[in-house]
Structures are given as C-alpha cells and as structure tokens.
C-alpha cells in the first residue's frame, strides 16, 4: 500500500450512489419531461445557465464558518465568565457581599477553564494553540480575543486560587494578590464578555456583518443575563442581581424587536427556517419572559417573588444559550445564500427562481 493512500482520505468512489442518482434523473426526465435535481435542466436546453440573475449556477461564493459545536458553547461560557467577574468585583467593592464575590470568582474560573478547552479543541491544530501568542494584531478580533482570554483566564484562575488559599491561610499577601487578580480579571472581563460579537460581526458572512453594530451589545447583554441567572440559580438573592437581570432582559427585548423589524434580505435567516425558530425561541426566553416575570416578582409576596425570579433566571440562561446557537446557525444559512455577496438579494426577494432555464422558457423577468 502506498503512503499516499494513508495520507489522503479516499475520495468518493460510491458508484452505486452515482448510479442511483442517474436513475432518479432518468426516471424524472421520463415522467415529467424535466428534471428538478440540482445541475440538471433538460427542459429547453440540456445545460444549466449562468447569468447575472442566477450567479454562477447558484453556487455559494462564500465559505461557511468551519467551526464545530464547541464555538456556540464557547460564546455562551465566555459571555458568562466575563460578566460574572465584573459582577463579582462590584459585589465585593461596592455591594460588600463577600459570599457572592467568592462564588463569582469560582464561576468565572470555571467558565474560563471551560472556554479555553472549548476554544482550543475547536482549532484545526489544537497542539499549536500557542501560535496565537506569536503576535498581537489589533485589527484581528480573533487575536485580540485570544489575548483577552489569556489575560482573563490567568487572572480569574489566580483570583479563584487565592480565594481557596484564603480559607486555610490568613495571610495579607494572599488576600492582596487575590484582590488584584480579581480587579484585572474584571477589567479584562469587560471586553471578554462581548468580543465574540465583534469577532463574528467583522466577517464576510452577511447576516453577521449586517449586525456588526448591535451584535457585541447583544452578546454582552445576553452574557450578563445568563451570568446573573446562574448566580441566582446558585442561591444568591442579592437585589442587585435582580436589577441587573431586569436591565439585561429589557435590552434583550429591545434587541428582539430590532431583529424582528429590521427586515433586510441579509437578516432573513434570523426569521425564517430552523435558524429563525431558534432565534425567536432564544429571544423570547431571554427577553420578554424574564422581563415580565421579574416585574411580576416586584409586586409579589416574598416567597412568590423568589420563585418567580428563579423561573426568570432559568428562562434567561436557556434563552442566552439558544441565542448563541441561533446566531451561529444563521451564519451557516447566510453563507449558503449565494445571492447576497453578488448583491442579487433584491432579485431573490422578488421570487426569481434560483436557477431559471434557458431556451424553451423565457428568462425570468426582473422585477420592475
């Protein structure tokens, strides 16, 4: 056996599958007189056509994001970890809630550990993840993000470690180091909680690019919403968490309305098909539902109020998670839309078929 066969994957040599496809095409041609399968238009002319209206046989120009399942989860964990570290610092220095601040350190450290694992495992060459540290490139959100994660991860882990040590050794130095680490973690948590919005917004994928002005804010608030919710679900009852959750849900509601009303061809995947369904589900779960529940909680009795806030928290966390999946999914759908980068969106909106035939049929008329 040659080494080539070992190095390269076996190409598609499934003759049976190709025979089946040919059989399908032949039988369809016999019964209907024309074939709908991609690439075949025997009616009128034996060849499909390329034209300004149809692009290049309707083949997508752009490549889909090569990322796997890790990335939407990373967007979620990163958003949560970044926000939690900021909340933790505020809880310690302003809120004087040491219990909450302690848990924030642990949640941020757990989130950053998980984020790093997810991000590195999605690399094509995980062993080379340190190549990210070769350069600092301010024009590349991926580079900025990698450095932010490195700083944030280091210091949130250090803060959590100091917290653990402090329970056994009451040295001032440990406390001081822990607090400094916490502050740096919170400062780097600020961009870390939302940079993923910049990351995907600054791409050529139409649905992401179209929303580059709102995506970071959307992802940031979604992360804050989930962070607050997770802390509440861990049993923390600080009123500030509810206030933050209320604010984040309100902004998420506005974002939902914006997504629904901004009806551009590029943003279609946010409203149509499976990606539209997930976007809407995520939007409702993280926007109006927790907002209504938290408002209701303000007027309810003490026990009832706590229950309502817990439901709101669970809804927000689930909604935030779904939101990340929805946006990544929408990006894939958008990349496959061949008309957008060719600026044929208007033609598609007007309902011109993807691949009109030439010859017997008239070429599609452009919408006046």
């Amino acid at each position, binding site marked *: 056996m040659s080494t080539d066969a070992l190095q*390269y*994957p076996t*190409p598609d040599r499934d003759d049976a599958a*190709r025979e089946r496809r040919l059989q399908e095409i032949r039988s369809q041609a016999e019964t209907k007189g024309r074939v709908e399968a*991609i*690439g*075949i238009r025997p009616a009128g002319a034996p*060849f*499909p*056509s*390329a*034209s*300004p209206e149809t692009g*290049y*046989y309707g083949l997508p*120009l752009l*490549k*889909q994001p*090569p990322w796997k399942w890790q990335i939407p989860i990373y967007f979620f964990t990163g958003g949560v970890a970044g926000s939690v570290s900021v909340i933790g610092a*505020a*809880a310690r220095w*302003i*809120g*004087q809630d040491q219990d909450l601040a302690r848990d924030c350190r642990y949640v941020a450290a757990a989130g950053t550990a998980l984020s790093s694992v997810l991000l590195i495992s999605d*690399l*094509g*060459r*995980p062993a*080379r*993840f340190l*190549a*990210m540290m070769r*350069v600092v490139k301010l*024009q*590349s959100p991926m580079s900025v993000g990698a450095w932010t994660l490195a700083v944030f991860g280091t210091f949130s882990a250090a803060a959590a470690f100091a917290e653990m040590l402090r329970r056994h050794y009451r040295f001032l130095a440990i406390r001081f180091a822990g607090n400094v680490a916490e502050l740096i973690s919170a400062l780097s948590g*600020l*961009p870390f*909680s*939302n*940079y993923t*919005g910049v*990351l995907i917004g*600054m791409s*050529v*994928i139409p649905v992401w690019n179209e929303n*580059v*002005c709102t*995506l970071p804010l959307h*992802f*940031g608030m979604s992360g*804050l919403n989930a962070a607050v919710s997770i802390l509440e679900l861990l049993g923390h*009852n*600080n009123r500030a968490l509810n*206030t*933050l959750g209320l604010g984040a849900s309100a902004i998420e509601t506005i974002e939902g309305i914006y997504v629904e009303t901004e009806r551009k061809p590029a943003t279609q995947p946010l409203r149509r098909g499976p990606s539209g369904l997930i976007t809407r589900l995520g939007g409702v779960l993280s926007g109006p539902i927790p907002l209504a529940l938290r408002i209701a909680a303000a007027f309810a009795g003490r026990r009832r109020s706590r229950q309502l806030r817990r439901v709101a928290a669970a809804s927000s966390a689930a909604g935030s998670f779904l939101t990340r999946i929805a946006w990544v999914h929408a*990006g894939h759908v958008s*990349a496959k839309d061949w008309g957008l*980068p*060719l600026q*044929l969106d208007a033609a598609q909106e007007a309902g011109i078929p993807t691949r009109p035939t030439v010859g017997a049929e008239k070429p599609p008329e452009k919408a006046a």
Partner: protein
Amino acid sequence: MSVTITGFLTDSTVCIGCKACEVACKEWNGIREDGLNFSGNSYDNTGALGDSTWRHVKFIEGKPQPGLGGNAVEQLSWEFSSDVCKHCEVAGCLEACPTGAIVRTEFGGVFLQPDVCNGCGYCVIACPFGVVQRNEDDGRAFKCTFCYDRQKVGLKPACAQACPTESIKFGPLDRLQLDAEERVQELRARGMDDAQLYDPRDTSVGGIHAMFIVRGDPRQYNLPPKPEVPRTYLKAGWTSSAVAAGLLLFGSMLAFLGSGKQ
C-alpha cells in the same frame, strides 16, 4: 536586490477550458483530489476554490449569443475562466489571521505559512471571495501560495507555465495592469462591447493581484461586485463592544450601590 511585485492576468476570452492549470497546480503543490463527482454544471465538476482547489476553471453557459457559442447561431454561449486566489492589495484573510501565519511575500502575494497555521478558521470567514478553506482532515487552512517556492527561484507559477493559450498571464503587476487595459480596448474594438477588467480597486479590497478579463456581468463568474474587507467594520464592532462593556460596568456598579449592604 530588487524584487518586482508580480501578478496574474487571467483572460477568459482566450481560455479553452482545458483545466491544465488545475492539474499543474495540483501536481506541483501536491494537493489531494477533490472527488469524482458529477455536478451537471456544464463541465465544471469542481464548483469552487477551496483547500484542495487552488485553481478552478469556471464554465459559464448562457443564452445563445452570436460569437460566443460555436459556429452555429443557436449554440449556447460558452465561456471559461480560470479562478484563483485574488491576492488582494488589502487582504481580509491576512488581517484576520491571529497567528501571523498569513503574510505578504516580497512578490506582493498573500502566502499562508502551513507550519504556523493552527487552524482557527477565522481567515475562512474573512475572505470576501470565499477562497480560503480549512481542510478538516488536516486541520489547517489552505489556499493558493502564488507558487511562492517557484517564484523564489525565478520560475513562473505552475498554472501560468502550463496554460497552453496564455490565458493565464504572469508578470510584473504594473505591466499586467497596462496589458489588461490594452486588451480590453482591443476586444471592444473587435466588437466585444461587454469585455471588461475585473479589479475592484474602488472597494476596501483596494485592487487584486490576480485580475480577470471577463465578458458580461462579473457576477455570473461568481465575482462579487463590491467585495469588502472585514476591517472596514472594526470601528463599528468595537464601538458596540465598548457600549456593552460600559453598560456592564456601570450597570453592575449602580445595581450594587442601589442594593445596599445585604
């Protein structure tokens, strides 16, 4: 030592669709085959550029058009154009690469160093021409190298060397730009009014080092009319990010100020 900025000028009006460039490229660069599939899209069974396709011949079949089909009037028009990485003046992939694996060579080409690439995949969604692709078996991203190795020793890129009709011209970029203008004028003088040069210099891409002479609308060659480099949106993105960070910071501070000591 002075090195000239080199370029490609791919002239679809003399391309015969033989795919010698595709084969030469694969041979020289040792790229795997991309499967033996039947697309039905004319004689193009490859479809698009990708990690295993650095030269790709497009077959554009259109409505019958005198002079563009065979020698009979009712023949469909049929054109060929060999596509390649555009080696943009302002390259989206190069700017997006977080490892510095993608560099500008002394010949002006955009070169992806396979020994540095860690397969983050960000260049894939930064290329407005859909050229770069991650090889999922290998993990790294791949694209045309502009035959950097051959150019280093003074050779033509493999595709240009193999092209039997000189549809793929290779040479100093400034000279090719003049040649292109001249060629378009010549074609127009011969009655091909729709001949044009595809070189999006008025966009954020700022021109390409692999130019194309095409007939008709470039969109039927899957050439975008207005390619933009993602860096254009840098300010918009980070402004929104700063707003979100501000809301998070001041929101947290105010929320805990308002809540008082628990």
